[in-house]
Structure formats: C-alpha cells, structure tokens
C-alpha cells in the first residue's frame, strides 16, 4: 500500500515539478509574482479541448495544442501585464495579475459553466501491474514525460547559449545586460518556455484526474507558489525538491488522514516553511541592503 502511494506521489510530483519549474523560470527573470499562472494553464486546457472536441483525442495532439495555446497566452500576459508595470511598485503588477486571474477564471465560468468537464484524452500507455502496485497509464506517462521534460530543460539551461543567457539574467539582470544579453528577448522567451512547461503539466494533470474545472487555477497557483517557496524561490533544483515534497505530503495525507483537506496541506506546509526557513530548502538567503 505504501509503495502504491509512493508511486502515485512520484507521478503527482512530476507534474507539480513541471508547473513549478515553469513558474520558477518566469519568476526568476521577472522577479514578480504571477497570480494568473494557474489560470492561464487551465484556460489553455479548455480552449484546446474545445478546438479538438470532435476531431481527435490523441494525447500527442492535445499536448501540442495546449502547449502552443499556453505559450501564446504567456506572451500576451507578459506584454500586457508585466512589461508596462515593470518599473512601478510591486503592488501594481500584483494587482494587475490578480485582475487577470479574476478575468480569466470568470471568462471560463461564463464560456464553459462551473461544472467539471471531462478531459478526454487517449492515453497511449496501458495500466501496468508491478510488485503489488497498480500504475495507471496516465501516471506512468506523467513520470516519463516529466522526467523527459526536466532533462530537456536541464540541457537547455546548461548546454545552450540561450540557456546560459537565461541563467545569467536570473542571477544578475544588470550584469547580463552589460554582457550584451537582450533582456526583453530573454524575458519573453523564458515566459514562453515556462508557459510551455505549464502546458505539459496541464495535460498530464488533466489526464490523471480525468477532469478540468474553471476554478482549478487557484488551487494550481497556490500549490505552485507553495512548492516554489518550499524548495526555494529562484532555485531550479529547489523547484523539483519542493514539488516532490508537496506531492508526497498531499498523497499521503489524502490516503491516511483525510481526502477533503488535501489541498489545505500545501498551505500548511507553506506557512510552516515560511516561518522556519523563509528562503526555502535550497534557496539563497537574500539580505536586505541597508
């Protein structure tokens, strides 16, 4: 039984890791909270499902559609919300992205109604039985795809010039500009990369749970924040650590404590971490400059 929960946690952890990595990248170059991140993910799912509805339920096609849509929306959000408010006090972009979240969630409520909608996708992997565990195809897919995506991201960040430019911008934006890196371009591309990752996560999440609903964005958003902060804001490996921790906590408490409150676990864990070690597990301590 424990092994089963562990396997489930891994699958969930993989998905959370993708979401959180996408968010960490975006936060890394923007240094601003993005309240609509989860909602952009979810609406991309809805749009893709609607567009594909009758024609196909292929996993691959759904994946590609969602990723494309979410990347486009990501560019839009970056242009409309974050670029104009970059130099204003933080509260302004915060309020703007909160506004965007409200807008997107309610657009979904208006267009598709409040009820859960089936996320119909053909999963190319069958359910497998191994060592007393039952792994559904979607869960196996989650683990495989998330590992693949993380490897791809790692390669991008460490082996390509583009990736190094991103890391440079995250570490020290001013120095990066001085070295000739085009900040606007990097921010926009990182937004696309981060959004793409969230798109993949959305498809995996939808196929695992079989459903999608308009207010899911809030839960996704808060869990992403939680995982990112727990692992350490701005740290890429931290995002993975935080996500896995969160997934384990959620799965095990759902199995052994109570299903109803599993979403609250993320929050409790988050508040605990914020109090004990605000920089997160792998985060760097950022001292205020007096």
């Amino acid at each position, binding site marked *: 039984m424990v092994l089963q929960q562990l396997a489930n946690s891994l699958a969930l952890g993989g998905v959370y890791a993708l979401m959180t990595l996408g968010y960490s990248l975006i936060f890394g170059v923007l240094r601003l909270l993005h309240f609509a991140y989860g909602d952009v993910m979810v609406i991309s799912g809805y749009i893709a499902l609607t567009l594909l509805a009758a024609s196909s339920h292929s996993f691959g096609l759904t994946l590609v559609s969602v990723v494309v849509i979410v990347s486009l929306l990501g560019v839009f959000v970056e242009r409309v919300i974050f670029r104009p408010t970059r130099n204003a006090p933080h509260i302004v972009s*915060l*309020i703007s992205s909160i*506004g965007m979240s409200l807008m997107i969630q*309610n657009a979904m*409520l208006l267009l598709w109604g409040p009820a859960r909608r089936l996320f119909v996708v053909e999963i190319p992997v069958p359910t497998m039985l191994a060592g007393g565990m039952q792994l559904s195809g979607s869960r196996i897919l989650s683990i495989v795809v998330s590992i693949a995506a993380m490897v791809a991201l790692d390669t991008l960040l460490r082996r390509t010039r583009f990736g190094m430019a991103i890391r440079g911008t995250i570490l020290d934006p001013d120095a990066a500009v001085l070295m000739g890196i085009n900040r606007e371009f990097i921010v926009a591309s990182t937004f696309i990369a981060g959004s793409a990752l969230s798109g993949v996560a959305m498809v995996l999440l939808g196929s695992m749970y079989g459903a999608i609903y308009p207010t899911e964005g809030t839960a996704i958003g*808060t869990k992403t*924040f*939680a995982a990112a902060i727990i692992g350490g804001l701005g740290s890429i490996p931290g995002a993975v650590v935080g996500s896995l921790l969160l997934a384990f906590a959620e799965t095990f408490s759902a199995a052994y404590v109570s299903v109803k409150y599993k979403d609250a676990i993320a929050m409790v864990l988050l508040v605990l971490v914020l109090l004990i070690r*605000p920089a997160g597990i792998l985060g760097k301590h950022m001292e205020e400059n007096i």
Partner: protein
Amino acid sequence: MGTILGFRRYLLWGALMIPALLLPILRLPTFIYRIATLIFIYSCVNTGYNLLVGYCGIISVAQAGFFGIGAYTAALMSIHLHTSFVVNVVAGALMAATLSALLGLPILRLKGQYLVVATLGINQVISLVACNAEFTGGPNGLPGIAAPSILGISIASPTSLYYLNLGGLVLVTAVAALLVHSPVGRSMIAVREDQLAAEAIGINVGATKLLTFTLAAAIAGLAGGFYAHNGLYVSWQTFIPGESFIMLAMLTIGGMGTLAGPVLGTALLMALPEALRSASLYRFFLYGLALSVVAPLWPGGLTGIRMKRKASTATRALSSQGGSAA
C-alpha cells in the same frame, strides 16, 4: 474648528450622509435597499482593508477569510447559543482579531511578496475548513440565523436593516478616521513608505504592523457579523480567496490611502453591475478587467489620483492638524 475631521471634510461627509439617510423615504423598490445594505457591509470590510493595504502598505489577500471568521462566529452563536446581535457581532470581531494576531506574529516578519502568498494560504485554509467541516455546515452552509434585534426591537425589514448597516459603516469609518489622524496612523504611513527608515526614527515597526493587521481583521470580522445577521445565511463561497481579490479590486479602483476611497470603490463595483442589468453576469469579468487596466494606469485609483502631484489628502491633513498652516 471644533470637529474631529476639520471643517471642510465635515461638509463633504455631511453632504454624503444626507442622501444616504433620506434614501428609504423615497420608497424605491426593495432590491435597491438590499444592494445598498450589502454595499454598506462590504464598505466596512474594505475600510478595514484599506488601513492595512492603503495606509500601512501591507499587501494581504486574507481579508475575505477574516470576514468569514466573523460571519461564521456570529452565525454559530446565533444558532446554538441564541445570543443577541450585538454580542454575536463583537464575538465575530474578537475571533477574527485573535486569529489574525496569532497568525500575524510569525507571518508579518516576511518580506512583501512572500507575505502575500502566506495570506493567500490563510484565506485558502479558512475557506477549505468552512467548506468541509461539520460544524460549519459543510458545503451547504449555515441557515437559520436569527434576525438582529437591539433592545428588544427586531430589525427585519429591508429599510431597518439598511439603517442598521449604515450605522455600522458610520461607526467603522469614524474609528478609521480617528486612527488615521493620530500618532498611530502616522506610524502606519511611515511604515508604508520605508520600514527601515521608520524604525530608525523610533517607530516600533513590528508592533505597528501587527496592530494594523489585527485591526483590519477585527473590522472584517465585525462586518462579517453584520453580514450574517443580514442575509440570515452563511456559506463558504462568500469567503474564498477570489473574494479577497475582488475586495482588492474595490480598493484599487476607489483609491487607497484615503477614507472615501474604499466606500467609493465598493459602491461602484457593486452598484454598477446592478445598474447595467445585462452586465451582471459579466460582473467578475469586468472586475478583473478593471483591475488589470486601472492598476498600471491609475495606481492611486479614483480618489487617489491626486497622489501623483501632491501628498494624499490624508497625509496633508496630518501636517495641517495643528491649525497653524494651510
């Protein structure tokens, strides 16, 4: 002059109060009074919220959660203990104040963006408990709250509820006004502007932040009690994080850092969709749109637009209090 707020300010509020007091005499359709009553209640919540965000500069998105704490406390007391309206409302305020003080102690140490996320977590947990727990009635909420009665007189008609909640708003605004124009209010503003510098001129920043956080929650809790005794039913959907976002929208549009701002913003965002009947479905969508657009273009909101050139009216009032200058 002998009044608390200064002569000119007094005139303005008086000008607003007279139509407010006379509205019921016009015998308009009942739904107008019901909406106005809700506007009064939410204006209370937002006035408290404004102290925290507008005057003290602490961004929190837990206000709806504390509103809910107050509402549920009042509801439970009314249903199980049959206590009076005043007792329930005060209990609601105290409950919210206590919880916020306990949570605030550790949380207010956090830096800006981390703090926002922590408050989001708080609101999330509150609404989750409200939705799932037995004693809160689960997803179906708590019906059967008794109508308010003061000194034996039952207040059940729309017009009497209107006056009751208007009274509540006047009370809350008066408290806020007194606070803002006092040394404590000055400390809050200094903390907003620059915490380190405020500390260096002798202001106990930690205590100021905790006090403001608790006060904002207490006011929300108080308004929650009013809300429970108004609709006679509470359920968790009214207190989700999304509602905190909407309150933030009302603050942003009405203008933070002024006393009239929250009332204006609340009135606008609640009345306008009703006025444009067909648009009421798109209400939240419009809130969101307004937020996304207003914030970057007019950070000061409606009443705060003047903030661009001169210091806001509130802080100007602080410096001319002594009666000596302009």
